[in-house]
């Protein structure tokens, strides 16, 4: 019996390798995640020279080369504006878990009120016809927060803002 090309039984050896490593997130990010976990606050960092507010907080202002410290961190609003979005609708292996990333999911960038740079995260909408650049959004926090970016579950579109 002839087999079609690509259907031949192949010799296979399977294995799994763990590659653990430590990644230094810096003092500002530590403060960010502490505030997020303990107080449900979103913090940014403000450049002392140009006044640009970075969200997420950055340790160096890319435009001024000015170093920012924990003292330069300010609280941002959990609300902001949708600046760009897509609905990811294709399968791929998530390197953070080793498994398939659940899809479809809304992926967007926002400008939080008080921030000058974009924040990138999930948006709780998989129907792209319901999303529009300029819409108002707000962060939805996890009840039991652990101190990672997943503590913000996603951003959702605000229907009627006060």
């Amino acid at each position, binding site marked *: 019996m002839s087999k079609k090309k690509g259907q031949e039984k192949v010799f296979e050896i399977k294995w799994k390798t763990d590659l653990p490593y430590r990644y230094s997130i810096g003092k500002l990010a530590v403060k960010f995640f502490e505030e997020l976990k303990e107080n449900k606050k979103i913090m940014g960092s403000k450049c002392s020279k140009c006044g640009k507010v970075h969200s997420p907080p950055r340790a160096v202002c890319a435009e001024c080369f000015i170093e920012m410290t924990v003292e330069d961190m300010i609280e941002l609003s959990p609300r902001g504006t949708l600046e760009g979005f897509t609905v990811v609708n294709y399968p791929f292996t998530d390197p953070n878990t080793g498994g398939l990333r659940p899809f479809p999911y809304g992926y967007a960038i926002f400008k939080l009120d008080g921030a000058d740079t974009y924040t990138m995260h999930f948006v709780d909408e998989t129907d792209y016809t319901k999303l529009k*650049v300029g819409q108002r959004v707000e962060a939805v926090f996890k009840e039991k927060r652990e101190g990672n970016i997943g503590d913000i579950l996603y951003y959702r579109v605000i229907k009627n803002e006060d």
Partner: protein
Amino acid sequence: MDHFEGINFSELMCGIEAAPGYLKPVVKVATGGTTGSSLAICGYHNVASGIYNNVLVIGWEKLNEGGATTGIITAFDPVWERPSLAGALGPLALMAGMYSAKYGITAEQAAKVTVKNRSNAANNPFAHLQMPNITIDYVMSSQMISYPLRLHDCCPQSEGACALIYANEQETKKITDNPAWFHAVETAHYYTFGTDDKMYDLPTATIASKKAYKKAGIKNPVKDLDVAEIYEPTSWSELSWTEALGFCKPGEGGKLLDEGITQMSGEFPINPSGGVLSTNPIGATALVRVAEAATQVMGRGEKRQVPDVEKALAMGFGGSLWTEILILGKEPLR
């Protein structure tokens, strides 16, 4: 590139079987999507500096053992970016949407890019997706991959390789009487953190191309250049990049296409090879742009040849929104 081929240090195979590197200096260059153009620029520097007389530059990708999306995610910040980032297509989709919202570019105009490039690919025996009869409807009714990108707005995952031979002026005479000459090479970086960027255009393409035009004495790229091979990972990107490269004004990428200027029969054909939308072996892709630009300059493009090419532009684009530009000419730049 590491992560895409399922093995790190794949250049260790360059000894005998894959490439004639045995007992010779072998240098690996990997810069993401720009790998091929970085290779091309490094090859130029190695020969133009007088260090080597002849250099063989090879770019390749063997994607089926890796997974481009997964590999690309690992290039980004594990804490802030990886959890929501979906490889290259997610951010490119986001950029396409922002570009469209800003300038009113339509899905139909984007689809026309795919039709142009995949039809061009039918003239290129090395192209992966050759679709001579592709229509706008076919592109616009394909599956939504990541709004506004449909399946046929996106480049494929290809396997392939590309090699270029570099030689100094003396050595060139021994090889060919019809070489392509380097006029300018430029690299522009802009990136500090993914979300610092404007995202609706490509500032690095503007920075790199302006510098390259100055070096090569190009005042009006559409008139002074004869053809361009640009790195368009999506149909929308080609429209946006043509603006960033100064082929038209900001917001007029759709108009440039609608006027037929970038078609094979137009004044300034873009991607006669079929471009990245037709063939994308990532580590080779930007080198293919340079090889195709050289092919055009040497008049060896056969069915995809643009008539009377004196000067050609090649562009590399990478994941951290950086750009590399190379300008080649039929005669040396004096």
